[in-house]
């Protein structure tokens, strides 16, 4: 079947009714994330790469370094480019072809979370002012979609950037020596700009939905939070959220981000 096999109405009823009692089908509480497993260096050819598993959801993220001229309006700053691919490999719902909106949104939301937070010190990526700067390429690939690719992708991007090592740059010949990695990492903030996506299912909120729960989500808000400061947010899908509920959402996000950052640090050990 090429049809998008969304969860049925009856499953939605079960999920919503259970949620109204503060429970989820897999035993989690609404504010719990699934088990987070991070495998490092899944590609020796990447400057940094990880496999992130959030429950059954899996993404691969790799960091590659390149050099180029800086943008004219920021001659001292390096660049960041985040690309996401929702591979048909990972779900019967994705098709081959140029990235459609969900993949584009995934890339852009992740980019915003990394960029706006100040996680990456762009000025330290400058090689020669006005002439040469580093570009950090972060490429995200979905491997299995069981919900919440948004947060999984972001966690993967943070992890890959954290473990990345700079290649040696041969200034004389203007060549990057990928085979010679230095011991130097990327210029990063010690805190992580975790992304917390809060979903509204029926009258309740939850995070880290499984595929079934995500199908029943009416709307979602993704926050990029680093060290208690919210530096990016995006509300997606169509249902509105009242102002009062939105205030609840902000509180939830802040609390959950702290826990998620702890979870991330643990998984990276």
């Amino acid at each position, binding site marked *: 079947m090429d049809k998008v096999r969304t969860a049925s109405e*009856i*499953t939605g009823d079960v999920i919503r009714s259970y949620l109204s009692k503060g429970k989820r089908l897999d035993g989690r509480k609404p504010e719990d994330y699934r088990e987070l497993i991070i495998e490092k260096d899944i590609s020796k050819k990447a400057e940094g790469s990880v496999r992130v598993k959030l429950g059954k959801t899996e993404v691969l993220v790799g960091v590659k370094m390149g050099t180029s001229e800086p943008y004219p309006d920021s001659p001292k700053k390096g660049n960041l480019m985040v690309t996401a691919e929702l591979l048909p490999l990972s779900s019967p719902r994705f098709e081959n072809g140029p990235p459609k909106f969900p993949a584009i949104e995934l890339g852009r939301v992740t980019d915003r979370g990394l960029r706006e937070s100040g996680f990456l010190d762009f000025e330290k990526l400058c090689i020669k002012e006005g002439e040469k700067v580093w570009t950090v390429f972060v490429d995200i690939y979905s491997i299995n979609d069981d919900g919440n690719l948004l947060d999984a992708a972001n966690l993967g991007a943070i992890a890959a950037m954290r473990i990345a090592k700079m290649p040696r740059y041969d200034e004389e010949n203007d060549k990057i020596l990928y085979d010679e990695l230095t011991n130097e990492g990327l210029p990063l903030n010690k805190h992580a700009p975790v992304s917390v996506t809060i979903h509204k299912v029926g009258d309740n909120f939850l995070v880290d939905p499984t595929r079934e729960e995500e199908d029943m989500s009416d709307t979602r808000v993704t926050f990029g939070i680093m060290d208690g400061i919210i530096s990016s947010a995006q509300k997606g899908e169509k249902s509105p959220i009242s102002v009062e509920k939105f205030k609840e959402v902000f509180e939830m996000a802040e609390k959950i981000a702290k826990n998620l950052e702890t979870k991330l640090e643990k998984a990276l050990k």
Partner: protein
Amino acid sequence: MIQENERKVAVPGEILAEGEDYLPGEWTEKREGKIYSLKYGLVEESGKLVKIIPLSGTYTPRRGNVIIGKVENITFNGWVIDIGAADNAFLSLMEVPRYVNKDALEEVMGIGDMVIAKIWSINKRGIDLSLKSRGLGVIDEGVVFEINPNKVPRVIGKEGSMIKLIKDETGCNITVGQNGAILINGDSIENELLAKKAIIHISDKSYIKGLTEEMENFFKENKREQSLKEEKN
């Protein structure tokens, strides 16, 4: 009497038996006196008949199958139902046991609703479903999920023994669709989820011998965990 012989796993192209008097059963082929497997699955020999019981593969609809499907679309005279096969199935309003007004199809079943139906005909035009039998109809409540259709025989068990075990242990009503979709109705969500967990466990371990014993242990373990949890609280 078909004996459950050793659960040997075969891969495509593997030689299962050699000799002129062996007969090629389902998912096997005879070439130059050798029986070859055509699928990844369990080898079953009954006498000289060698066949493969697939461990995977999509659902092949058969006449008489009771299935659980989801309403994908409503036409002027019926419902288009996704049963997990390559083609959608069709339920005509004439095949519903009570009178349905042509303008009121939506009231009986809407898009996204799940229904238990029987395949009464498969022809060039497609797969035709009927609700004119006991136990069939729209699903109002319960937990619905899917397993691989090839695992259904193990979930049901010899003469229904396995499904009866689950029903007894969880107190739930369970409908198993031949297409791998399963409906569980119990007195509590906890029991419904336990039954679901049990069925998924059977599906994962479908290839082992002594599956009944495995499941009896599964329920014993679960009871133990439950009482430990209650003690903690």
